[in-house]
Every structure is written in structure tokens, then in C-alpha cells.
């Protein structure tokens, strides 16, 4: 069965410093993995996705993530945090049994300090 674990429920960084949001996955197959962002009381927006092509995936707003099979990880990074990055971030693995349902991580709330 597929699953994802987001290792930090809260992360605080100062504006202009790097961001690292950690995600580990479990999957019997080559997984499809997504990162979504949710601003308060809003829907979710796709940041980036890994679909077995390039292992380094670039997304919107300067975010990127690297798929590392040996570490079963898909961590989200950004070189320099901006105040507008403050939000909740979800790592998602896709169930590949035919229904293509999402399995969500529990989320990481990113706080950006001025």
C-alpha cells in the first residue's frame, strides 16, 4: 500500500533563508508524487509533480523537489523564502490500483518570519 509521511508538522524560517519541507513515501511501484500548497481558507494549488521523468522537478514560485528512490524521499525546497510562502504544504502519493486516488500527508505548516 502507498503512503506518505511528512516529517514536520510546523516549520519556521526567516524571510530570505532556504526552505526545506520533508516528505517520505512508501510505494510498491514507481510512484507519482505531488506537492500542493494551501493558503488559509483556500483550496489547494499544485506546486509540482514527479511522474518518473526527471528526478529534480521544478514547480511554481521557485519551489523544486528531488525524487530520491534510495531514500524514498521527495523533499520540497526553495532557496529563499518569501512572506507569501507562508501556508500549509501537502505531499501526495497517487494510488495506482486503477482509481488514481490521492493519499495525502498530514501537512506541514510553513511560517515565514520577517
Amino acid at each position, binding site marked *: 500500500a502507498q503512503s506518505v509521511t511528512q516529517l514536520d508538522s510546523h516549520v519556521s524560517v526567516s524571510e530570505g533563508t532556504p526552505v526545506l519541507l520533508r516528505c517520505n513515501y512508501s510505494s510498491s511501484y514507481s510512484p507519482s508524487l505531488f506537492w500542493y500548497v494551501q493558503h488559509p*481558507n*483556500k483550496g*489547494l494549488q499544485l506546486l509540482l509533480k514527479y511522474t518518473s521523468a526527471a528526478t529534480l522537478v521544478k514547480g511554481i514560485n521557485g519551489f523544486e523537489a528531488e525524487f530520491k528512490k534510495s531514500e524514498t524521499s521527495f523533499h520540497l525546497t526553495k532557496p529563499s523564502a518569501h512572506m507569501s510562502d507562508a501556508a500549509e504544504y501537502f505531499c501526495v502519493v497517487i494510488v495506482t490500483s486503477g482509481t488514481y486516488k490521492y493519499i495525502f500527508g498530514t501537512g506541514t505548516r510553513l511560517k515565514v518570519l520577517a
Partner: protein
Amino acid sequence: SQTIHQWPATLVQPVGSPLSLECTVEGTSNPNLYWYRQAAGRGLQLLFYSVGIGQISSEVPQNLSASRPQDRQFILSSKKLLLSDSGFYLCAWRLGRRSYNEQFFGPGTRLTVL
């Protein structure tokens, strides 16, 4: 372009009252449709999904039900709300049978049961 609508945006209901939340998608056809609930401080829980008109799959047994009377309309209902039904309800759609096709989320409905 495709858009997804949810209404109402916010709702306050007494315990034991009925519920009807509506989701519609524009600009596409034959989408897969999903209802999620996000409780305070928690991740997203898949409640129902539908791959076609009248086809509903339930993920979690509860006092909620879903219906898909038209191709691009998805309704979440309850006959009698419980306090535990409070949360943020999100509708989503996706196309196709490729695992890497992402889900697109609506703006959500904030439900408070008192």
C-alpha cells in the same frame, strides 16, 4: 479553461439539520470528481469519489452521502448533521486514467455545526 465552483462558501448549521453542498465543474467533460474533508489541524480525508453519472464510491462510513445527478455536478448531503461534521469541505476534479494527471481543487466550503 476549466473552472470549479463550490457553494456556499461558509455555512453554520445546527446539529440534526440537513446539509447540501454543491460542486460544479465547467469547461470539461467526464471528469472524475472527489469530495474531501479537512478537519482543523489535520490533513485531507477522501470522503467520496465518482467516475461517472450515478457512480459513487464511499471511502469512509458516516452519515454523509454523495450524488452525481449530472456529468459535472457533485453534491454532498446529510440528513442529520453531527458536531463532528464540522470542517472544510473541498471538491476536486481530474481527467483521464493517467496517474500523473493532477486533481484540481475548488475553493472549499467552511461548515460549522453548532
